């Protein structure tokens, strides 16, 4: 009888411990909530006082850039262990613009899930990692999207020896897609708008998808054009290499990609923004990394002002808290927009992308830099 009583007591004790720990957990959680709230407050504070992150980066002497390490042409690690790509060059451009040294960058590879958390937590200063600018991300991720560096869109890839030219040719076909945030939706919307039938085969992983596409399980592979170009450039030689694949001339969605910074870092955001704009402006002015030194002595007052050369005695200071010669530093380090594009993803690279939407506004593209004055 006594032992049963003890057992009952023990059970009751466990119950009490449960409740107590429950209360404790509750307390902890509330505290966490409070701390998290506090953190966001301290995070927004620099924005109010102004320029804190810009000063932090300057005094640290290094820029921490959140990047992708697995997209050929945009952000990937070479066999030698170096980061290379279009987005990587923009990290270097920002470092050159703020710190005067394109090598003063630490690259942080981030997954799609990590990226916004890392940005909010201040683990990275800026995120340059093929991130599509959408309203909900701008609104609810605490992120601020800056000038678009690459206008991407969802495209369609087929075997080169197939007869498909446009979406209409794929009526009733099976389309392989990598399950993503918007890929399936765009596909369905585009096909139904054209009153076409199709079967989506949506994989969670690239490897089975590639197998299925290789073996003819599906007629086409749909993803972002930049991704498709990367996959095509790395297509195994045993399967015919890049020549075995063809990317159709269709764009099924808008995917503007560009740098992202945390909300509330106004000075830093302005600095990154104008560094991006400077690369585009340089191309419009015809300033390249080759002719930058000649351009410093240009007769054109606009170019003089842009490169921070004294016009009527004083170099022009737009009040961006950047070095007057930041644009010259950027162009000297990574070149103008056209050079960055050609070097990483242009027609002479494995990706072989045409400028298309990414041409300057003067050539029918979308890059339209605001005036520098």
């Amino acid at each position, binding site marked *: *009888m006594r032992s*049963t*009583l003890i057992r*009952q*007591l023990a*059970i*009751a004790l*466990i*119950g*009490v411990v*449960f*409740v107590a720990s*429950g209360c404790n957990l*509750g307390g902890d*959680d509330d505290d966490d*909530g409070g701390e998290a709230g506090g953190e966001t407050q301290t995070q927004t504070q620099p924005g109010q006082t102004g320029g804190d992150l810009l000063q932090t980066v300057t005094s640290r002497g290094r820029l921490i850039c959140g990047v992708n390490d697995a997209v050929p042409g945009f952000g990937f690690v070479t066999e030698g262990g170096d980061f290379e790509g279009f987005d990587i060059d923009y990290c270097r451009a920002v470092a050159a613009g703020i710190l005067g040294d394109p090598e003063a960058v630490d690259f942080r590879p981030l997954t799609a899930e990590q990226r916004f958390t890392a940005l909010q937590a201040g683990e990275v200063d800026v995120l340059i990692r093929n991130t599509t600018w959408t309203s909900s991300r701008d609104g*609810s991720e605490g992120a601020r999207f800056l000038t678009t560096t690459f206008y991407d869109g969802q495209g369609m890839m087929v075997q080169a020896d197939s007869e498909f030219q446009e979406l209409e040719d794929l009526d*009733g*076909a*099976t389309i392989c897609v990598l*399950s*993503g*945030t918007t890929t*399936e*939706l765009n*596909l*369905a*919307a585009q096909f*139904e708008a054209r009153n076409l039938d*199709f*079967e*989506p*085969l*949506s*994989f*969670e*992983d690239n490897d*089975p*998808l590639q*197998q*299925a596409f290789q*073996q*003819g*399980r599906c*007629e086409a592979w749909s993803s972002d054009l930049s991704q498709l170009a990367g996959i095509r450039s790395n297509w195994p030689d045993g399967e015919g290499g890049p020549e075995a694949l063809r990317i159709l001339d269709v764009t099924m969605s808008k995917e503007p990609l560009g740098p992202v910074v945390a909300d509330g870092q106004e000075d830093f955001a302005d600095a990154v923004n104008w560094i991006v704009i400077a690369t585009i402006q340089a191309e419009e002015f015809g300033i390249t990394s080759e002719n930058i030194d000649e351009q410093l002595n240009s007769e054109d007052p606009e170019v003089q002002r842009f490169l921070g050369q004294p016009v009527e005695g004083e170099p022009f200071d737009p009040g961006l808290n950047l070095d007057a010669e930041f644009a010259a530093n950027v162009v000297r380090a990574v070149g103008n927009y056209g050079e960055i594009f050609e070097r990483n993803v242009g027609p002479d690279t494995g990706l072989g992308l045409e400028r298309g939407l990414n041409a300057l506004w003067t050539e029918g593209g979308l890059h339209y830099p605001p005036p520098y004055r």
Partner: protein
Amino acid sequence: MSRPAPWRDVRVLRIAFQAAFLVAVVAFVLWIVDNTVGNLERRGIRTSFDFLDQPAGFRIPGSDFRTSQSIGDAILVGVETTMKVSAIGIVLAFLLGVFVGVARLSPNWLVRRAAALYVESLRNVPVLAIIFFWYLAVILRLPTVEVAGLFVFSNRAFAVPDLTLEDGIELFGIAALVGLVAAAVVWRWRTRRFDATGEPHHRVLWGAGLLAAVLTVGFFAAGRPIGLDTPERLRFGFAGGLRMSPEFAGLLIALVLYTASHIAEVVRGSILAVQKGQGEAADALGLSPFQRLRFVVLPQAFRIMIPPLANHFLNLVKNSSLGVAIALPEVTRVVRIAISQRAPAPQSIVMLMGIYLVFSLSIALVTNLVNRRLQLKGRT
């Protein structure tokens, strides 16, 4: 005899402790739910199930699901696929498992060893690896058949001819019913005659022959009401016939082979668990090895194997969620697509778990009922 004070009375204390524990558990669960819901709301994450009524916006291969239908409908389409693959898989895995399990005990050395090789090689490999093997290394490597025959095995579809019912099928149905009744009557007549005179009964021959005759006459009298729907090649893929997508076939084959290897072991163990004297008694009665198995050993083995079998059936249903790896739109895949289209993850996953729970509990219920029926009555 005076009762002790309540705080010293064991009976009172026992109830009090139980009550206190119950209150603690209920409070804990309530707190967890409240805390979760509260935190989700504070972070602006929806906690209702409204999303089920929103348009899905995506398509599901192998179904006529439209993008304007709701997410709830999409999940139902996924449930249907899971049920199909599970139901077919359970039947096939059971048949194959019994066959291999009996073969494991065969006196024939080659049969015994081959069955052992099958069991040991499949039972000890992760089922995901088997699924990948069948899908990536076998089915995707099949040719893309360009001209459809009666049977199609290609990496675009598996297809066999299907039966179609046409006008006059009611008449044929009545004929079939009459045939069945007639066959039953003849069966009983032959059995009685055998009991009375000992003349060989041949009741199977009589019954089946009569039924076949009636069906043949009925088929032509009703104007051939059953047609054959053969697969045909479209511009992309196939139409017609009974079709199975390569993903469905891959998952089904892998699940059947894997589960059958486990079931074979259950069957072997159950047969060995039947008292040895039963087999010896069958031998003493002069039954053939097949009769011994069919009428003496297996009926008793089935009684033993039902609870562990149920376990493997449940595992097959749960393993069917691995279809996500090969793009089969079963319920897990559909829920995951819905989540990537901004359906709230907590509710969706809770629903998914609930769906599998219903599957599992239903199978458990059925097998429990069967088990209760098959148990020896009057045993304690």
